[in-house]
């Protein structure tokens, strides 16, 4: 004969075990443990990233130099026919919607294809978009360090007209350099602007 107290303990343990099994099942079938890509880790604060590049005018730039203003940063390459120009157009539009406030924002396009995107190519390409957008380029090693800091990724294709798979989200950082949000190509423009305005307040 088990005591009442032991019975309650067993009942409690049994309930907890059942709950645990159910939770595990949910985790593996429907929850975050389900078989789908895990969300990428969040980008480091800009102040903790470490890479050195030049902008499309040849000036030395670094992620630390962005701290002090909110920043929009994204990766791409100038031979990209679809996503990159569309993203640059979106950003140009957001900047024009912001009007004079746009001056309170850093906007940076970092190439993941420094072999083709020479400084000259970057300077020519950036000329098509809002002049506030800076085009950054570094060596392959520095590009890799930048990509790692943003927890982004890229992969160069093959052949003479290779394409580059790359993280196409736009990263939004607060003025103190901490990561705030991502914006993507299919985002409603009003919502994207709201996110940007929020970090500018």
């Amino acid at each position: 004969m088990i005591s009442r107290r032991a019975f309650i303990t067993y009942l409690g343990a049994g309930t907890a075990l059942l709950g645990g099994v159910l939770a595990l099942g949910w985790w593996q079938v429907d929850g975050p443990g389900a078989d789908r890509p895990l969300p990428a880790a969040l980008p480091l604060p800009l102040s903790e990233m470490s890479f050195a590049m030049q902008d499309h005018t040849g000036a030395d730039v670094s992620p630390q130099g962005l701290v002090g203003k909110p920043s929009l940063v994204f990766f791409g390459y100038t031979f990209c026919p679809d996503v990159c120009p569309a993203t640059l157009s979106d950003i140009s539009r957001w900047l024009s919607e912001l009007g004079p406030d746009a001056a309170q924002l850093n906007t940076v396009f970092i190439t993941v294809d420094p072999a083709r995107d020479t400084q000259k190519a970057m300077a020519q390409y950036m000329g098509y978009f809002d002049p506030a957008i800076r085009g950054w380029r570094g060596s392959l090693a520095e590009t890799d360090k930048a990509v790692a800091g943003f927890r982004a990724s890229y992969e160069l294709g093959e052949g003479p007209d290779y394409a580059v798979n790359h993280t196409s989200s736009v990263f939004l950082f607060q003025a103190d350099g901490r990561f705030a949000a991502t914006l993507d190509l299919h985002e409603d423009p009003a919502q994207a602007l709201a996110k940007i305005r929020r970090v500018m307040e």
Partner: protein
Amino acid sequence: MKRTLFAFAFAVFAGLPALVAAGQNGIIVEQAWSRASMGESRPGVAYMVLQNTGSEARILTGVETGVAMMPQIHLTTTDANGVSQMAPAGDLEILPGAAITLEPGGLHIMLMKLKQPLAEGENYSLTLVFKNGDNVEISVPVLSATARGPAN
């Protein structure tokens, strides 16, 4: 001829914009546009909406144009981590009554190895190649390098 008339009637009925091309096979193309090319060596791109007003499925197998040596239909996909990649889209089936949309961040015609710059304000000719041999030739207007859609 009957089909062309039908397609035309449909276009008028639906109040579609002026930039409409109707093929013999019931395919209507609207909202075609290209972004002005940027520099000599970068690939161009074209977008449009293809509507099948016919009674049979149509299969788009490719494109031809005098402005590029290697025009290809590509699909951009973006995974859960926000990584985008492009790959040839292969044959595209358009069911009767259905439409496919080529737009930034999805299906697009990639104009590789441009033979001439695509200048804003110009138009160029592009042929959509269908499996049944009824090809559709359209005129694609070139919009600005920062255009985001057919309306601007």
